């Protein structure tokens, strides 16, 4: 399967990416607002409000403030959201309602290139959101540089991981409403239990083991480590996990979209 897929993907996928960029540029002023304002709201609510109650938290055997603990997790969550929502709802609208993929398939592009372009675009949106959030959070002095810059390529990798699984769901859901299911069963539990707002160690033992399966757990661990300036070989496991996740879900996404659209 991998060989067949790679044969049909040329650099032309960039045309699909460019198409989405053209559309994005029309509404960039609105698209900029959520990643700009969201961290501010969270830092205000959790840092000033909840942070007083929580006090300090142990991370990597150091005591850190609650706001510096959650700030990098907010970036990780945004990486997940941007790619996942782009390649579920937005891609589904393009595929199903607007028939954009049908139109492109009558040009020299292949379906594999369309899907690749869509996933790379989803990851690009993750990177854009990350850049804006890094800027905002850095103003509060919560990111250590230059190590913190590693979060940018990480956003791309994480974006591909979450975009691929999003596109996989797009390939199998019968209607757009069904996306509620993966969001309810997959995205929301990850949002809460991936070491985002409290350390995974606070969970019961079985739930700790379960959360290791979540890609967000690894992404959060990486963004948090980088923003505290920690670079450790242990982190390679988290990176490797995300790579393997992409290697499974990217071809799988193409496979189910092929089954759905080529009749």
């Amino acid at each position: 399967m991998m060989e067949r897929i790679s044969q049909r993907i040329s650099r032309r996928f960039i045309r699909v990416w460019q198409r989405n960029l053209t559309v994005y540029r029309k509404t960039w002023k609105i698209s900029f607002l959520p990643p700009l304002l969201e961290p501010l709201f969270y830092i205000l609510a959790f840092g000033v409000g909840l942070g007083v109650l929580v006090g300090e938290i142990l991370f990597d055997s150091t005591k850190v403030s609650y706001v510096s603990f959650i700030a990098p997790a907010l970036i990780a969550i945004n990486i997940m959201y941007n790619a996942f929502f782009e390649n579920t709802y937005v891609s589904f609208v393009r595929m199903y309602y607007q028939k954009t993929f049908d139109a492109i398939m009558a040009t020299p592009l292949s379906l594999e290139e369309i899907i690749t372009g869509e996933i790379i675009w989803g990851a690009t949106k993750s990177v854009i959101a990350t850049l804006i959030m890094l800027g905002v959070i850095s103003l509060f002095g919560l990111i250590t540089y230059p190590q913190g810059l590693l979060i940018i390529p990480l956003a791309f990798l994480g974006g591909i991981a979450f975009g691929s699984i999003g596109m996989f769901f797009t390939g199998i859901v019968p209607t757009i409403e069904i996306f509620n299911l993966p969001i309810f069963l997959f995205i929301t539990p990850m949002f809460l239990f991936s070491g985002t707002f409290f350390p995974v160690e606070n969970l019961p033992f079985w739930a700790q083991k379960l959360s290791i399966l979540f890609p967000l757990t690894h992404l959060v661990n990486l963004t948090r480590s980088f923003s505290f300036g920690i670079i450790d070989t242990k982190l390679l496991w988290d990176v490797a996990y995300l790579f393997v996740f992409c290697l499974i879900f990217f071809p799988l996404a193409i496979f189910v979209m092929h089954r759905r659209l080529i009749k």
Partner: protein
Amino acid sequence: MLKRKGVLLQSSHLEKKQMEHIIEAEGLRKTFGDLVAVDDISFKVLRGECFGILGPNGAGKTSTIRMIYGFSPMTSGSLKVFGLDISKGLRQIKSHIGVCQQENNLDPDLSVLQNLEVYAHYFNIPRKAAEKRAKELLAFMSLGHREKAKVTELSGGMMRRLVLARSLINNPDLLILDEPTTGLDPQSRHQVWERLEGLRSKGLTILLTTHYMDEASRLCDRLVIMDHGRILVMGEPFELIRKHIGRNVIEVNAPSKELQAFIQSQKLEYEDIGHRLIIYSEDSDNLFHKISDSYCKDGCILRMATLEDVFLKLTGRDLRE
């Protein structure tokens, strides 16, 4: 390998005159599970002609052309476009055809002009050239004044013309149209027809599907009538009318019993559609006088046979739903 094919195609472009067959389909079949959509059809489309595929809903028209532009893989058979095998040279083939799909799948996120420019980029046409070509095509389709408009603001006829403009963006050697005027008002249909006639007169090869007989007679040099996935007849529109119907037909409204008895005694070929009889005859002039004088005073007309007569005679009058 890909490069070599590209060169091959280019050289065949130079020797266009030698390439008589733009499309060669042999024993083409398409099945969806148990359903046989296209059942072993063969045909050839010559360079520079307008070739029509006619048939009622579900006859297999769209399935046929979707295989030709590579949208859906064929189940079996052989299919060559521009002399290239579709399973090997699909990308090269697709870069030289223009497709106007049945559904309007214009990009609603983009403006009229952007729809063409972005589409041009799918064909790797450079930005400057794309803009120039897009503007020319908008002018040709009388859409120049709407280039900034949103696609959703356009009327049905304008959308169709924009889809047509988009399908010409790569200067195709073959234009494929799936029911190009379905759902349009008469004015818009005539506008589309005029543009298509203009393109045909410039030597563009056109393959179209339609269930409008007037459209087919006006545009097509040759056509096939399909039903249940098979080709029933193939030929030039007038030749088909002559062969299957004759020059004229007699239509009788509310035929009397005497007339029906007369028709049966004369062993005339006719069709009974409830309150109306359609009588086919070689010698329709004399027959018409006889019938109108003796059997009906009014409600009886002699008219030119049309492609519609051929179509209904061959595909029957049952509803296809």
